[in-house]
């Protein structure tokens, strides 16, 4: 069931992305609405697919890289669609759509790892931990995209050409709102995710903090985003500096998400997850 839904979701995302790209080129409002509707449809199906996987597997479907990428693409699409409700950054469909398609394709070709049905993965704390972290990642990825768009539009404005890029990209003011909103929400969710993870670790492993590589990288990421938020709100780093900062912070986030999960040993790594029984002394 979840596999079928996965492929239908992918189809909707592909179609939605193509139409959104068509809107990017032709700038027809009809294409924008159609693309957006398809992406919403895809997101709904995606949510159902993940729910089905959860039911089928018995645990939150985020125990392997395959599943994590799937959830991350869901989080990114959700962040884009929800933020777009308020701010309407029309170019985002053409940008985030293909990224989500690639993430889902990557997830599709990765090996299926049987999920672990231990009680340790069924605690409410770990559910909150994983969902908050993933939703936070999705929002912070949106901040990254917003930063890239900001830098591009800033460059277009300074080039003084008023060419196709200038006309298609949203205003700096709107991108600034996008960046601020997604950064605030993303940082909040990441904070909740880290706290709930620590609480869970105390319950399951007997200590809040174990200097696992993923934990260390997550802390570095969190501190960087805290600094980004601080410089933005207090120092007023909203222009190019802030945008570059958010791009750099996202690079560290990717290390935390992929690097610490794949390359570094520890109980957060995907390879150890399948064998993780929890509650070890």
């Amino acid at each position: 069931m979840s596999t079928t839904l996965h492929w239908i979701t992918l189809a909707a995302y592909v179609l939605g992305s193509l139409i959104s790209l068509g809107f990017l080129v032709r700038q027809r409002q009809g294409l924008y609405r159609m693309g957006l509707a398809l992406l919403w449809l895809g997101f709904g199906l995606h949510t159902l697919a993940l729910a089905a996987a959860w039911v089928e597997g018995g645990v939150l479907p985020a125990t392997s890289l395959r599943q994590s990428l799937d959830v991350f693409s869901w989080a990114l699409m959700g962040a884009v669609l929800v933020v777009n409700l308020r701010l309407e950054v029309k170019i985002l469909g053409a940008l985030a759509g293909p990224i989500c398609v690639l993430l889902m394709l990557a997830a599709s070709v990765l090996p299926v790892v049987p999920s672990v049905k231990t009680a340790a993965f069924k605690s409410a704390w770990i559910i909150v931990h994983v969902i908050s972290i993933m939703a936070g990642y999705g929002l912070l990825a949106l901040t990254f995209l917003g930063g890239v768009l900001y830098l591009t539009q800033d460059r277009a404005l300074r080039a003084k050409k008023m060419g196709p890029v200038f006309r298609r990209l949203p205003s700096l003011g709107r991108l600034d709102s996008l960046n601020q909103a997604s950064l605030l929400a993303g940082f909040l969710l990441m904070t909740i995710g880290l706290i709930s993870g620590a609480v869970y670790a105390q319950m399951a492993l007997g200590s809040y903090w174990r200097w696992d590589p993923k934990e260390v990288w997550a802390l570095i990421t969190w501190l960087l985003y805290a600094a980004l938020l601080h410089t933005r709100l207090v120092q007023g780093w909203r222009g190019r500096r802030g945008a570059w900062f958010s791009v750099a912070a996202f690079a560290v986030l990717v290390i935390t998400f992929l690097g610490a999960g794949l390359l570094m040993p520890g109980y957060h790594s995907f390879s150890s997850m399948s064998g993780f029984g929890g509650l070890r002394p």
Partner: protein
Amino acid sequence: MKLQLIGLSHKTAPLEVRECLAPPPEAVPGELHRLVALPGVREAVMVSTCNRVEVLAATEDQADQAELIGWLCSGRGQAPELIGEHLYRYQGADAVRHLFRVASSLDSMVVGEPQILGQIKEAYRTATDAGTTRTVLNRLLHKTFQVAKRVRSETNIGGAAVSISFAAVELAKKIFDSLEGLSALVVGAGEMAELAVEHLMAQGVSKVQVANRTLERAVELAQGWGGHAISLEDLGAVLGDVDIVIASTGSPQAVITAKMARKALKARRGRPLFFIDIAVPRDVESAVGELDGCYLYDIDDLTSVVEANRAGRAVEAGQAERIVAEEVVKFMTWLAGLDAVPTISALAAKAEEIRTAEVARTLKDLSELSPDEIAALDRLTQALVKKLVHDPIMFIKGASHGKSPDTLRQQLALVRRIFNLEENGGK
């Protein structure tokens, strides 16, 4: 009589060159007097806006264009050869066409913008006050105004375009998204700056401050917009509070320096600042445009806005070009008709000269004629001559109606050759 036009515009010369050629407004009458003092130059008008410097002159047929160029370049610290590559030079019908096109806003940065006509009217007024226009340019300029009016009413070229104002709004929207509640600062006063402010206000800009060299003018302008006036010294402090700055002073140096902008940015805590510098020479240091959070557009940068609009107006412009072409022919016919006047008077004068000479010679031989008889002889010869030259004169007059200027010129030349009028013709 020959019409000559030399000049340079945003299409042919960069801002740096236009800056150094444009005389300050108060110097224009003096420049015009200097120009009509040149040999062969009879009438002159000078149009100087931030986008173009043009000199239109009615000269003797043999007047040299190099002299005009030398005059335009003299005293401006630029060698004529350097400026020469940016200059366009038109004569006769081409000069008339160029003037009509400029006035109809077909040559403007934003095609269809209405300000240029006002600027040409102003230039004409300056020239008439200076006394450097007469029959030809008076007629030409009035015709120009009519043509511009005709283009405006018969085509839709004016559409939505309002040049600088249009560009300013477009750019401000890409920076601030919505202009609702923003505040603007106007430095210096000028028609273009005023228009820009009005457009920004129409889009939601709610607060306007005005800084000007003379405070009275600043207060006057500020009152019109419900804003308030500040002195130029307070500029630095105000930059921290405003979002859009429109600079258009006549100051030879920059009024807004990078140092001022940097200080303002600190106070703004990341809110961007948008500078529109429509002054020539420029009012805002170019380094300001490189600061994070500062966006600076000078008059040349605004050209690009046009490109987006131009396509839609191409059709209207084509129609306008047809009107211009038609009016050029009409005017050139009139101008050529003007050339017929000296030929007619020369013919009449020559005939009268022959008659009086012949009558005098005859009277010498016929000494016993009574005064009545002498008067009769005079009447007879007068009638003879009059009847003889009547047809050629009617031919010349007839030629100046509805014939092309070239045909008319040829016919006039023929008449002059037949009656051997060469030497008197040019006078």
